């Protein structure tokens, strides 16, 4: 089996699973219980928070909220901050190429009376700084954008955005960091909040964090026992939170070698595919090396996914979160690609542990699939 769908989810590390199991068998106590065992777990969670802040190099303005994943983190940050800030202005800005957990939240805020505006993106999928500058005014309270695009792997200009927003101190700047953490360097202190999902970096599904400033001012969207600074009530899921901290630690420890491996292997696959006539690589050259969007114009993405599945190679069409929807992918559309290219696109996303043998086997399979669909390819578009 060759797994090339790591942008959808990654394989959890053994050590992470072990922490999770040990938490559930030996340390299953509720950290909010007043007895010694509970207190012990509360200390452990505190230490996990401290560690996470260290791994992310965060300054003291940030607090860490454990969530069920980046979707929830995005919701808490965007809804909570918008509600808190609405006294100061009602315009919120994002791009059309965000993840559904951001886009749908922003649309829901629009329904509540916020004035939603979309920042343009350039042809190669980057947020257009000039467009952002034009949209900014005194009514803007929230700007959100992803760090690394999940479809194309394009890296967004977070540093530049942050610099521009310095002139608008009431704007809360949220960054969806899901695809970037541990693989693309970023000074997260440039943002006001930052979301992560554990299962994108070899942790467990159903867990994530929101690193956020001004936690005391945020309006909760879940009410209850006041856990997680009162922002996200509900019994603390200590085992997955601890497992998340472990996954982050390992990601952090192996950061350099991971980046090296991803660059080397991603580049190799890219230059291999480039040679095939009629196959188009949609990911721009300056995108991350570990996400590669490829089109076989004239062949449906779904057909390709099935064709590769025959060789036990697992990849996906666009993103997992929208692959089951018939609508054309927003990111590819925003990049001005034709319907045929969009319909014929697949996404390969790799992990650092992809072996050379697997790469060779992938090349073999790619060649076979190419021959099978060659006749359908539309060379001239």
């Amino acid at each position, binding site marked *: 089996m060759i797994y090339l769908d790591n942008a959808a989810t990654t394989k959890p590390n053994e050590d992470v699973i072990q922490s999770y199991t040990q*938490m559930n068998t030996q340390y299953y106590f509720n950290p909010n219980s007043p*007895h010694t065992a509970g*207190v012990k777990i509360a*200390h452990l969670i505190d230490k996990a928070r401290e560690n996470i802040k260290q791994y992310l190099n965060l300054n003291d303005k940030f607090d860490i909220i454990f969530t069920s994943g980046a979707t929830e983190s995005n919701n808490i940050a965007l809804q909570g901050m918008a509600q808190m800030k609405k006294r100061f202005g009602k315009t919120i800005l994002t791009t059309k190429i965000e993840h559904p957990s951001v886009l749908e939240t922003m649309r829901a805020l629009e329904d509540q009376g916020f004035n939603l505006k979309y920042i343009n993106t350039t042809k190669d999928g980057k947020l257009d700084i000039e467009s952002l500058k034009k949209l900014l005014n005194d009514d803007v309270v929230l700007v959100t954008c992803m760090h690394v695009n999940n479809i194309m792997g394009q890296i967004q200009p977070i540093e530049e955005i942050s610099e521009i927003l310095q002139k608008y101190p009431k704007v809360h700047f949220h960054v969806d960091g899901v695809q970037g953490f541990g693989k693309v360097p970023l000074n997260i202190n440039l943002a006001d909040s930052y979301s992560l999902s554990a299962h994108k970096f070899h942790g467990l599904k159903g867990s994530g964090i929101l690193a956020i400033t001004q936690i005391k001012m945020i309006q909760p969207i879940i009410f209850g026992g006041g856990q997680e600074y009162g922002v996200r009530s509900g019994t603390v899921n200590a085992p997955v939170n601890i497992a998340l*901290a472990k996954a982050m630690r390992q990601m952090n420890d192996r950061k350099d070698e991971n980046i090296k491996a991803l660059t080397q292997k991603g580049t190799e696959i890219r230059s291999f595919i480039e040679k095939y006539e009629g196959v188009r690589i949609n990911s721009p050259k300056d995108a991350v090396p570990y996400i590669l969007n490829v089109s076989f114009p004239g062949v449906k993405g779904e057909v390709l996914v099935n064709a590769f599945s025959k060789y036990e190679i697992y990849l996906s069409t666009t993103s997992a979160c929208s692959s089951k929807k018939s609508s054309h992918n927003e990111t590819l559309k925003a990049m001005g690609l034709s319907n045929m290219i969009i319909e014929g696109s697949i996404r390969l996303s790799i992990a650092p542990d992809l072996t050379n043998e697997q790469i060779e086997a992938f090349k073999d399979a790619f060649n076979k699939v190419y021959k099978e669909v060659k006749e359908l390819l539309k060379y001239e578009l």
Partner: protein
Amino acid sequence: MNYDHILVRYGELTLKTGNRNMFVNKLKANLKSRLMPLQGYNVRANRDRMYIDVHEGADIEEMMSRIQTVFGVHSVSPVVRIEKELDAMKEIASKFADDFKDGDTFKIEVKRADKTFELDTFQLQQELGGHVLQNTENVTVNVKQPDHRIKVEVRKDAIYMYNRVLEGVGGLPVGTGGKTLLMLSGGIDSPVAGMEVMKRGVTIEAIHFHSPPYTSEQAKQKVIDLTKQLANLTNDIKLHIVPFTELQKQIHKVVEESYTMTSTRRMMLKVTEKLAHEIGAQAIVNGENLGQVASQTLGSMYAINSVTSMPILRPLLTFDKEDIVRKAKAINTFDLSIQPFEDCCTIFTPKNPKTNPKLEKVEYFESKFDFEDLIEEAVKNVETITISKHDDMQQQKDEWMDELL
């Protein structure tokens, strides 16, 4: 830079004359104990300052940050010890300059304790400054506001060179000012009060009132943890835990409700005084603050204080709450203190405590029962724990955490 020594300067104790050796020896002992878990050093103290030889590979930064927190330390510098030879001095001076950036300015500051050294202050400044200028590109001398100061001390035994002076906490070495008994409640204030008196060189033991089953094991553990934090600032601290349930029950039986708080404090003070005599303490310390809560009005203090003639030190008397919180955070007791466990002060709190209790009235209520036996009993059954800063339990705690994280 390869520092081979740490220079420790004393604060106030240099004002002492007759018994300075006692202060210095105490400081030396406290400092050694603070450095205990670390490896690779040797402490030499003289009347004016202390030199710590640091062996190669030892963690000098960790050592300095520990030393900074020892009461009695005025400042700390990492230094290089150099033979009294000009070429060697020049070489080290230009090593200091290695870290300078383009366009930086510097100054050589010479202090000559040994007046017999062949070069005078001005000559030394010129020689060393000239050497640095020659060997470092794009730096200039600025004697008024330099970016860097290379400090040179000429002393009898050698030359010491350094460029950093880190502030210490000041105060006097703990153990030079007699012994006190600290009333440790588990709240935010009392640990800070303990720290404040320790800073004046005073040794503390702690007393805590425990009322099982009304107060939990967690409440007790919290006080143990707090004591541990205080021990981290100095040495081992003895914690006396007083079984207080019987006294508390009896107070509630005979004293009118609005006076129970006043009476409870009086009983605590009586127990504390007795214990203080037993352990040879000369004063009681508590975290009382003027006007913070009902028991801390002048009227209350008068009625409560009347049971003892022992001095009661209240270092936080005039502090603002936010200052106390800031200090509590600095000594790592704040997060422990805010854990929400009932203690014996909160568990029986009357609805409307008297803020201005009358001494005659409380004495009248208490006269209905002879509390002396219960007080004796409580003092007799005190559980004493010695809390050490080098706590293995803490280490174990971290180990299991590290495995999971």
